[in-house]
C-alpha cells in the first residue's frame, strides 16, 4: 500500500515545535497531531509521489524518529480514519 495526502479536499496543517494542528477543509474538523503523527504526515505531504510503509520507516529513522512498524501502522490507521491520508 502506498500513501498520499487526501486528494479531494485541502488539508492545512501548522506545526508548533514537534506537534501540529491540522484543519480538514472537507470535514471541517480540526485535529491535534502528536510528534510522531506530525512527522509522518509531513513526510507524506512533502513527497511528490505516493509513499509506501517501508519507505516511510526508513525516512523516519533517518530523520529524528524512533518508530517501530506497529506504531507506524497505528499512526497511518489514525490518519486514514480521519481522511487526512488515503491509500493508493
Amino acid at each position: 500500500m502506498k500513501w498520499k495526502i487526501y486528494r479531494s479536499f485541502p488539508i492545512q496543517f501548522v506545526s508548533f515545535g514537534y506537534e501540529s494542528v491540522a484543519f480538514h477543509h472537507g470535514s471541517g474538523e480540526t485535529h491535534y497531531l502528536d510528534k510522531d503523527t506530525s512527522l509522518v504526515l509531513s513526510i507524506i505531504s512533502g513527497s511528490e509521489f505516493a509513499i509506501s510503509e517501508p519507505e516511510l520507516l526508513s525516512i523516519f529513522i533517518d530523520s529524528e524518529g524512533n518508530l517501530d512498524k506497529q506504531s507506524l501502522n497505528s499512526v497511518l490507521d489514525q490518519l486514514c480514519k480521519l481522511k487526512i491520508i488515503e491509500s493508493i
Partner: protein
Amino acid sequence: MMPDLLNEYLMLKAKDSIDSNSDWELLLRQARSAGVLARLTFFQKKFLLFNPPQHFAYHLDSAETYWLSQKRIVKWELHNLLQVFELLNIRLILLKGTAYSASGLNAGLGRVFSDIDILVPKTQLKQVKDALKWHGWLPEPMDNYDQRYYEQWMHELPPLRHIKRGTSLDIHHNILPQTCNLYPDAELLLKAAVKITDTDYWVLAPEDMVLHSASHLFWGGEFENGLRDLSDIDLLLREFSGNDPSFWENLHHRAEMLGLGKPLFYALRYTTKILATPVPDSVIEASTVYAGGGKNRVMDYLFSQALKPHHSSCMDSLTGFARWLLFLRSHWLKMPLHILVPHLIRKAWFRLTDNTKTT
C-alpha cells in the same frame, strides 16, 4: 400595517428609499424570521442590488458565514454518500436545496437547509437503505404510528441520521405521496435526470425541479418558510428561462405529462403576483387551463396571507387562520378522510404540548 420590506427585496428591486434605521432593523427581523437573511446577502454581494449601512452588513456577513458552514457540511456529506452509491452503481440524484446548491444555481445561494434530500427508484430502496445502514446512516427512532404513516402514505422513507456526523438524510422515491390526488410517474422523473457538469451528482431536469418545488409548496401545507420557498421558485424560473428560450414551453408540456398542471398554475400565479417574476403573458395564459373554476379569489386570499413572512409586522389576525385552512387543504389533498382526521388530531396534540415554538 408595517411595510413589507422583505417582499421588495425578494422582488430583486433595489429599494432606495430605505434610509431609516427602523426600516433596516425591520428588514433584518423580517428576513431572519423568513429564513432568507443569507439570501439577501447574495442579493447584495453578487447582484449588487442594494447598499446597506455597516451595522446591517455585519448581519449579512454573519448569515453568510453560517451558510458557508452548512454548505461545507453538505458538501462533505455528499462526498461520503457518493462513495456508497458508487459501490452500489446507483445514481446519486439530489433534490431541493441540496440540488440547487450542488448545481451552483442562484436558488442555492444563501439557501440554508438542514437535511439532504435524494431520489431513489422505489425498486432500489431496500438495497440503498441497507448499504447506508452499513455505512452509518441509521433510521431515527420512531413510534409505530409514525412508522406506518411513512411506509403506507409517504413518498419518502423515514429520515436517516448519520451515527457519527449527526447529519440527516431524506430518501424520496417520488416527489409527492402516493395517496395524493396528484401522483407523477417517478420513472419519467428518473429518466429525465441530468448530471451536474464536472461532478458525479445528478439532479432533476430544470422543468422537473420547478414542478417539484411548486408541488412541495402548494400541496405540502407547510408555510412557515412559504415566502422563502416561493423565492426559490422565482429564482429558478428566472435562471432557467434566462438560459434557455424554450424553457417556458418545455415547462408547460412537462406539467401536462406529469399531471402537475395545477401546482404550475399556482406557482406562476403567485410568483408573478408577489415577487413580480417576469413570466411571459402567454405562459400564464396557457397555465390557466388548470385553474379551478371560480375558486381563484379564495385561494388568492389564502395563499397571499400564507406566503407573507412569518413575522408579527406582516401578519394580521386572519393570517393564522388562512395558514390553518391551507394546512388542512394539503392534508385533504394527500390523504383519504378516514386517515386524515385521526392524523390531524394527533399532530394538534403534539403542537399543544410543545411550547418551545414561535410566538
